[in-house]
């Protein structure tokens, strides 16, 4: 593999194309100028420092964290039920049920957002972080199921039978054998759904009330050119956090797959 293939060059260029635009955010977040434009004017960390005193931003961050934690917990629990049911059992209507649960992956987000909005308002609910959480759970569950399915699928069924054979009941088997082996996958699911919720904008935008989430806050700041570098700093931190969380999630996912005995050559889906 030492020779340089044209396809290899293409691959590197492609990867660069994916990453470089995103790298502009951190670049300008250190730029010593309030105007987001070239040429760069020197390095400063003042924009990051400003974030410390930005109460509105911190409020939005706190809101986002609350929503993300709640959303990831519920989505993962629903994902465990769904993934286990879909990989282990046969039942009528399975294909249709699976399709509905996984539908948010393909639908335009705006459809999900407005449908939920209309129904919630018609039912008399007021918009709040709770409604945002409901929306985020709906969108995260398919990802949770995707991650956990590979965990469950690679899982050797005879391990559970062995546990039964040695005298443990179904509940004890779940806690002593199934859960520990699937645990890394569960952790991975929690991290991914957390990150999805943290970064999600559209559904939050439509379903939030007076309390903004972080992406909504960022959106609102995009109009004020003076505050732009602050937003860039914030965005860069967000990118870094997402990157770290996802890296850990991936390591966990691989560990889960290895534990259950399968290979690690595939990705998420």
């Amino acid at each position, binding site marked *: 593999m030492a020779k340089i293939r044209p396809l290899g060059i293409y691959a590197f260029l492609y990867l660069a194309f994916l990453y470089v635009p995103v790298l502009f955010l951190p670049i300008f977040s250190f730029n010593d100028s309030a105007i987001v434009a070239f040429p760069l004017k020197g390095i400063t960390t003042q924009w990051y420092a400003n974030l410390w005193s930005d109460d509105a931003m911190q409020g939005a961050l706190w809101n986002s964290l609350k929503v993300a934690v709640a959303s990831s917990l519920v989505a993962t629990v629903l994902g465990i039920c769904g993934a286990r049911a879909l990989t282990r059992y046969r039942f009528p209507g399975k294909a249709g049920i699976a399709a509905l649960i996984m539908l948010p992956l393909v639908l335009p987000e705006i459809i999900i957002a407005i449908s939920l909005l209309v129904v919630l308002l018609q039912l008399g609910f007021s918009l709040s972080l709770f409604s945002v959480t409901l929306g985020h759970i709906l969108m995260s569950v398919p990802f949770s199921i995707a991650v956990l399915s590979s965990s469950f699928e690679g899982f050797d069924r005879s391990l559970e*039978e*062995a546990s*039964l054979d*040695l005298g443990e009941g179904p509940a004890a088997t779940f806690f002593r*054998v199934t859960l520990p*082996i699937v645990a890394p996958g569960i952790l991975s699911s929690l991290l991914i759904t957390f990150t999805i919720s943290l970064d999600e904008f559209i559904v939050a935008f439509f379903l939030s009330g007076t309390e903004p989430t972080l992406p909504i806050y960022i959106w609102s700041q995009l109009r004020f050119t003076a505050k732009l570098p602050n937003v860039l700093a914030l965005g860069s931190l967000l990118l870094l956090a997402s990157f770290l969380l996802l890296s850990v999630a991936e390591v966990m996912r691989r560990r889960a797959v290895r534990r259950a005995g399968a290979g690690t050559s595939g990705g998420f889906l």
Partner: protein
Amino acid sequence: MNDRIIIEIDRVTRKFGSFTALDEVSVQIREGEFFSLLGPSGCGKTTLLRQLAGFDDPTSGAIRIDGQAMVGVPANRRPTNMVFQNYAIFPHLTVEQNVAYGLRRLRLDGQERERRVKEALVRVDMAHLGARRSNEISGGQRQRVALARALIMRPKVLLLDEPLSALDKKLREQMQVELRHLQRAVGITFILVTHDQEEALTMSDRIAVMFGGRIAQCDRPENIYQQPRSRAVAEFIGGMNFLDAAILSESEDVIEVDVAGFGRAEVRKPAGAYFNGSGLTIGARPERMTLVYDEEAGHNRVVAGTVVEASYYGDMTYYAIAIESLDRPVVVSMRNTIGRRSLAAGEKVQVGWSPESLVPLV
């Protein structure tokens, strides 16, 4: 092994939709016996084993272990333990933790538990690897862990689902001997499922040969080998020559036949068998005949033939001999003893045989 019946399988049938996996299977297994279920894939042997383990229940019929009805009793409450085909070693636990797994419910005190685990590991020669995990030990070692894990539970019956199929030949032969010794040392009833007839012959006290969900023959290895009841059993176990024969007369214990290519003989019948009709198939094992050449004749009868092919197997050579009036060659095996010359294709020989070489098949 004593005469007490520990397992009764009573007309067990298992259907999956229109497919019958087990068809009115009945057999009784004695305490302390090393009992094998032998047959090709799909014959129902694993299905039957799983019925005993409790992972499945029969569509009809009864199963009793030590007198207690078992159908409907879940696997975790049966007095059986199983060694799975792929060993099912828990990947997140060490060897020691695996072996100790089933002891948790017994709530033994720490010392007693440790003692038992040590004893179990020593018995399978794995005491020095207790801290390893399943991906750090070899296949053969994993099998021993599976054995220790099951035996530590002191079950009444140990079920083994093709335990040696994943091992290479040398290791398999070694494990066959070890398993046999282990079973005698522990004294528990072993029920082994295998498709390898050599394995079954080597290790078992009795074998049940199964085809298509039914038991074709259930007997001691020697009897199955030397007196297979049917062509199917004869074909499955060991090599066999099949010869057409005409029935000349039949009495209580013997049947007089005229075997194509060979001649007349009076052959003993298996007890209670009747061969009505004009013809039957006669089986003849390659080692129950001999080749007479370069030496004085000394056999009951001989038939002239020509060597077609010789297959060398180290300790034996299998010769395919063409005999006039037979359309297929007859296989005769000869041990390669000192001084015995190997024959080449085309050489003329005499095939020595006697009525004891012949087995009447249903």
